[in-house]
């Protein structure tokens, strides 16, 4: 008896018996079941995936019976989806698998993720301070056009970044004035920003470039070539030549986490988003904090846009009407999916970027399946806001105009 009692008190054992541990392990195993069947491991027998998947399902059921129903069912779903993907992968040819899952998938995932990260972190600052920003899409689009315009006329990608960020900030300032000072409905205002950006960029794209294309030779945002990784088969193509903005986005996630959760400024921002009246009472200038956060969100979203037009494609700078094509909304989805936290938003953006990159590569199987695969991020977000996988909780005063007394 004494040994049993001692074992129960052992913190490691107690942690292992915690249902949330098995729940998360189940989710992880479900993903691992699918991972087994794709390169580099690429098991050709489906039994491996089925075995690991069943373990995940068992873990899930155990978690459900221990009272963490939501997490448990998540693990069960993860196990079943893992088995399904494993079956699909083992049935398809090795050549196709290698075409979809190679090292450059990592690089491409990061490339698709980066614009989302910039916009999502921008949205995080805005919404943490209590201003809903569905104008991210428009601010990103403005950054994309004016960034490439700046790089063209200014002769340097640095000018492009500055001009793009500046224009994004100005548009955000206009939005902030309407949302904060005039207390306009923030959803309506954000919608207006998106329309405005669509019209302004389209108008000036035709005015300056005849609506055709950006001239070749415009300075683009450079890549970071890591010399030590040149000869590695995997790391070379995966992370050896990533764009500066990709590394910057990773740094941004860390910095924004520290700023929002570990500094007095972050505390003020969150106070304005949770309870502006209380923040005002203790001497925080709610309007100033909100203005700052909204303008910052515009600058960050616009930087994501500049990357999209001036660094995303290897062939040189490019722009097209409505080029962001809903990325601002995906960023918003990533923010919600990530529960208004930097790491969560980054993880969701990574998931969405990965699914976009995979969708592009699924063309080797079938063009129509690849198109349909694009539904995934939106369907996942719908599931997330529906509270099926853990409830997302926005800041309490998000979207509510504040009136000084």
């Amino acid at each position, binding site marked *: 008896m004494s040994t049993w009692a001692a074992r129960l008190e052992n913190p490691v054992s107690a942690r292992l018996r915690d249902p949330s541990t098995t729940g998360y392990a189940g989710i992880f195993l479900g993903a691992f079941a699918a991972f087994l069947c794709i390169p580099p491991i690429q098991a050709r027998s489906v039994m491996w995936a089925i075995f690991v998947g069943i373990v995940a399902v068992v873990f899930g059921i155990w978690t459900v019976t221990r009272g963490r129903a939501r997490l448990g069912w998540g693990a069960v779903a993860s196990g079943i989806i893992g088995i399904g993907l494993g079956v699909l992968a083992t049935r398809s040819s090795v050549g196709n698998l290698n075409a979809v899952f190679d090292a450059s998938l990592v690089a491409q995932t990061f490339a698709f993720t980066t614009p989302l990260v910039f916009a999502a972190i921008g949205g995080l600052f805005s919404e943490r301070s209590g201003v809903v920003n569905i104008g991210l899409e428009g601010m990103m689009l403005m950054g994309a056009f004016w960034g490439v315009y700046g790089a063209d006329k200014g002769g340097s990608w640095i000018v492009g970044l500055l001009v793009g960020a500046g224009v994004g900030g100005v548009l955000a300032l206009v939005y902030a004035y309407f949302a904060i000072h005039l207390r306009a409905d923030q959803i309506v205002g954000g919608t*207006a*920003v998106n329309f405005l950006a*669509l*019209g302004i960029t*389209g*108008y000036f794209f035709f005015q300056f470039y005849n609506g055709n294309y950006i001239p070749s030779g415009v300075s683009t945002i450079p890549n970071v070539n890591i010399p030590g990784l040149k000869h590695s088969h995997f790391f070379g193509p995966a992370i050896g030549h990533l764009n500066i903005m990709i590394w910057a986005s990773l740094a941004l996630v860390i910095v924004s986490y520290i700023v929002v959760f570990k500094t007095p400024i972050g505390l003020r921002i969150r106070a304005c988003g949770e309870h502006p009246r209380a923040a005002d009472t203790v001497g925080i200038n709610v309007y100033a904090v909100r203005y700052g956060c909204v303008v910052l969100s515009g600058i960050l979203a616009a930087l994501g846009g500049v990357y999209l037009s001036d660094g995303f494609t290897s062939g040189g700078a490019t722009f097209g009407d409505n080029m962001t094509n809903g990325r601002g909304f995906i960023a918003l*989805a990533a923010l919600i999916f990530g529960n208004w936290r930097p790491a969560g938003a980054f993880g969701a953006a990574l998931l969405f970027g990965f699914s976009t990159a995979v969708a592009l590569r699924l063309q080797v199987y079938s063009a*129509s399946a690849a*198109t349909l695969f694009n*539904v995934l991020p939106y369907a996942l977000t719908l599931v997330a806001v529906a509270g099926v996988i853990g409830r997302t909780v926005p800041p309490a005063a998000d979207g509510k105009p504040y009136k000084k007394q």
Partner: protein
Amino acid sequence: MSQAENVPPEPPEEAAIERNTIAVSIALKQRAGGIIVPAITVVIAFLMSGIVVLATGHNPLIAYRDIFNGAGLNWIFHPTTDLTSTAAYNLTQTLLQTTTLILTGLAVAFAFRCGMFNIGGQGQYFAGIIVANWLGVEFSSMNPFLHVLLCIVAATLAGAFFAGIAGFLKATVGAHEVITTIMLNWIAIYLASWLFGDGGPLQNSADKTVPISNDIADSAKLPDFWGQQILQGLHIGIFIALAALVVYWAILNRTTLGYEVRAVGFNPESAAYGGINVKKNLIRAMAISGAFAGLAGAMDMLGYLYHYAQSDIAFSSVGFLGIAVALLGRNTAVGVGLSALLFGALLFGTTHGLTSSVIKPELAGNLTYIIQGLIVLFIGADLLILAVWNSRRKLRRPGHPKVTTSEAAA
């Protein structure tokens, strides 16, 4: 001037105290501004867009005149039914757009009256387009009247179902309808791309290299009453849209359902206290909203498009324009009708209808988005407009008593 317009608007300070729901603020705006705020908003939007046009080296006055003519609005100076007249032809095309915009505008307006913001009009419109095309291509040997009826009803239900998802999520788990309808929009966009695209189930059967749907059967086409089908004449859908305006008004103002919907929109808590089932009304209002948008998709598909290409999807913006139509029309039937005409005229007059020596359709087409953006921006900020208007009235009539007839009655 009518009695209502003589009532001075409420001071902005009071108008902003209780703005818990969108519907409350909308109701306040309705009492406060009447037709003044929309009118000023439109003028400001056109002025500011004119400045953009001027700054880029085009003459705004001539540009606006050409857009006016491009929309066929000059038809009223010399009315004729002869479609060889450019003005008459342009007017039919403007009215085609107006038909769609009335319905997508109602889709946004109805949800507004229940305190919800339906951004998903575009997705619900696609749901209607998809179902109308699918059923229009199938059953080609059906009785024309029944075929049209089947397509319209099914497309309307598809829109209702699609919006109903958002309503259901709002009612059951409290998911914000703005987020869910945005996500549903993109799901509809990619579903439509898949269905009409290469290898998709609704791709045409003749040429599998072209991502475009089959033409619907002749029995599913709505009859044209002005012009010919081959020249994209005006179909009878405009009367259906006008009827929808009446239905919208009647539902809201003459039925129990409308009363409950408005009560929930004005204040969900007191509606629940009064014995109204709030959840049921949220789902119902959203579904009716989607029904209008689905009907819009059916009208377009059966009325003049007949088929849909994958590339059309990205260029369609009628669902989003519906937001501006509803906001500018203040969610009233008459207002939605009028602002649908304005945006329909802008939509056609700045693009296909435009022949101008000073501004190209590519520029003017984007001008529509700018005007639309400015209108939505300023309608949302009625405080600004009202403040300007108030100060003007105060200057004219100092010492006007604050207590007004509407406040005394309330």
